[in-house]
């Protein structure tokens, strides 16, 4: 088999891919005709900044390989996936693929609450590139795998979110492309179902299909992939054996030694500068918690008008256990250039005993990172409460205060 592979052409050739985004002064917001006309009348150009989400990415993938793409938020992973999935074109470079690509950037794309389980299977399957006959022939297997046969003719809106997810993944699991691209879709659902999905993906790989898997979850990546690509700031840092690549990723993430938080900004874009930041009014890189609550206070300088959102992730052994942010997509905080102060409050969910750390990501909705601070240490947590704990929960901030004014409660 090995010898055979030597003579085969690579199934994917990625040649010097770069992707440039234009950040308008209205970054993150939507372009409006009114603003466009106003600008034309004033005869002035709005401030535009180029942002290279990816720069000169090249690598090849052999048939049957499984490659994990890892990197921090803002490293360009999602952009690379979008280009490979043809959702957005590269600015320069080319990709030659010698097989049918199916991408799972999300499970259950196009699911509609008014349609029944059966109807959703057909629509979603078709979206993922399956032919109607293909869906029909695999229909029973899909339903079997999902375990929701009793509700097949019930509108999706009456499904629990767990059932929706099972159904969604089951459709995707029966895709038969030569190349399967998977985003962190596994980061949802209960542990049992996650294991089932992972097993299914291993099977897919064993059948000789090629897998590209993007995840923050190092244990999963190691489990599924043999090769790894480590991205940083839109460039390839390392490429090779997954063990080595994962090790290097982890060393990038060594918990910050004592010191001021503000000196531990790992990444910061040109127009966003953190001046001061505290967690629970503490400036250091390891913090204390009282009453299960965390507050983040940040003062920053913005050089362009932009949307600024903060995501806080709590992790244990490189796995996220809880995330906070603007996940309900309420109005985004759009700010004018200048100095701003934001403060966020949250109440911690019940966590199992153990050692946790925190990642902070400043983002705007185009999923480009503005800045990040990672691996802020929390004190060892002891929890005698044996109530089951929410895993991978995503919650909204309980309180957001902008420049002294309460904007979200």
């Amino acid at each position, binding site marked *: 088999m090995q010898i055979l592979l030597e003579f085969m052409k690579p199934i994917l050739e990625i040649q010097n891919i770069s992707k440039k*985004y234009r950040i308008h002064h209205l970054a993150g917001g939507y372009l409006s005709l009114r603003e466009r006309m106003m600008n034309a009348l004033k005869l002035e150009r709005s401030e535009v900044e180029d942002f290279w989400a990816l720069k000169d990415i090249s690598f090849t993938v052999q048939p049957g390989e499984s490659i994990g793409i890892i990197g921090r938020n803002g490293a360009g992973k999602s952009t690379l996936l979008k280009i490979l999935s043809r959702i957005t074109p590269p600015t320069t470079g080319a990709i030659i*693929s010698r097989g049918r690509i199916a991408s799972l950037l999300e499970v259950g794309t*196009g699911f509609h609450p008014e349609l029944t389980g059966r109807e959703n299977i057909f629509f979603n399957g078709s979206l993922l590139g399956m032919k109607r006959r293909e869906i029909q022939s695999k229909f029973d297997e899909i339903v079997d795998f999902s375990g929701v046969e009793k509700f097949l003719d019930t509108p999706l809106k009456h499904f629990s979110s767990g059932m929706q997810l099972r159904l969604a993944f089951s459709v995707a699991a029966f895709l038969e492309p030569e190349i399967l691209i998977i985003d962190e879709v596994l980061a949802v659902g209960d542990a049992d179902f996650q294991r089932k999905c992972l097993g299914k993906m291993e099977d897919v790989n064993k059948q*000789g299909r090629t897998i590209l898997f993007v995840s923050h979850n190092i244990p999963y990546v190691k489990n599924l992939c043999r090769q790894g690509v480590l991205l940083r700031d839109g460039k390839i840092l390392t490429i090779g054996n997954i063990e080595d690549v994962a090790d290097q990723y982890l060393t990038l993430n060594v918990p910050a030694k004592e010191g001021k938080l503000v000196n531990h900004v790992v990444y910061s874009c040109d127009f966003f500068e953190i001046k001061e930041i505290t967690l629970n009014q503490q400036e250091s890189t390891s913090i204390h918690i009282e009453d299960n609550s965390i507050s983040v206070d940040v003062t920053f300088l913005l050089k362009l008008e932009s949307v600024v959102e903060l995501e806080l992730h709590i992790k244990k052994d490189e796995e996220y256990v809880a995330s906070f942010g603007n996940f309900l997509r309420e109005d985004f905080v759009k700010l004018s250039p200048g100095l701003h102060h934001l403060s966020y409050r949250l109440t911690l969910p019940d966590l199992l005993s153990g050692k946790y750390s925190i990642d902070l990501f400043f983002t705007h909705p185009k999923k480009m990172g503005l800045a990040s601070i990672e691996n802020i240490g929390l004190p060892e947590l002891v929890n005698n409460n044996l109530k089951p704990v929410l895993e991978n929960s995503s919650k909204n901030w309980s309180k957001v205060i902008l420049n002294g004014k309460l904007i979200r409660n």
Partner: protein
Amino acid sequence: MNQSYSETIIEPANRLSFNFKELWKYRELLYFFTWRDIKIKYKQTVLGFLWAILQPLLMMGIFTFFFGRALNIPSQNLPYPIYVFSGLLIWNLFSTGLTNASNSMVNNANIIKKIYFPRLVIPISSVAVAVFDFLMAFVLFTVLLVIYHQPIAWFAIVIWPIALGWAVIATLGLGAWLAALNVKYRDFRYVIPFLVQVLFFLTPVIYPVSLLQYPVLQYLLAASPMYAAIELFRYPLTNQITSLPFFYVSLACGMLLLLVGLFYFKKTEDFFADFA
């Protein structure tokens, strides 16, 4: 593993090539989009399919009462209800198709951002949903023709599908254009209902063009892409085309719209995921 797979090359956007072959390959998805939208639309209304029939019927009643009876507007020797209904059939296809299509890309943004397929599938399926409504209302139209003992020329069998086809093409052209504009400029959607309203009065749905006295104005009205479709659709009933030059003007305008619409759509297509 078979070696017969073809190479696909992903490159920076090439704005001017249409890949109709690819579109054809995705015809099943087009069917599923249409099927989904029809299902959802009629699941959400109490009256279901009846709504597609009831709406033009009510409109016909209102227009007949005000314009036919009260104002006595001429109707090319047809009973006024038949005249209005034949116009409304085509007009409703255009206005629902156009409204659906122009919102379609934004409404399906979550899909566009996650999965690749030729984006043109979405506006085409929106127009296809309007064609479905048209067919429902058309059944009622044939009933009306019988009730009014309206003679129909034999060539209706040929002319009606052509009129329908033309209406679909012109709707798609403008629809694709508006869909792309709507993704790019989010405040554009406020313009669309207004645009449809204005076009309604500029198109001879409820009155014949001959009612206007200035030829310049008549040419202007003929520029409405639906003019030709409606004229053509009424041809088997009236046995006359009001004015051949107007007819050609309308055809040319529709063709132009289709070209401009498709090119603009194509030009912005690759970046929909970034805008949406």
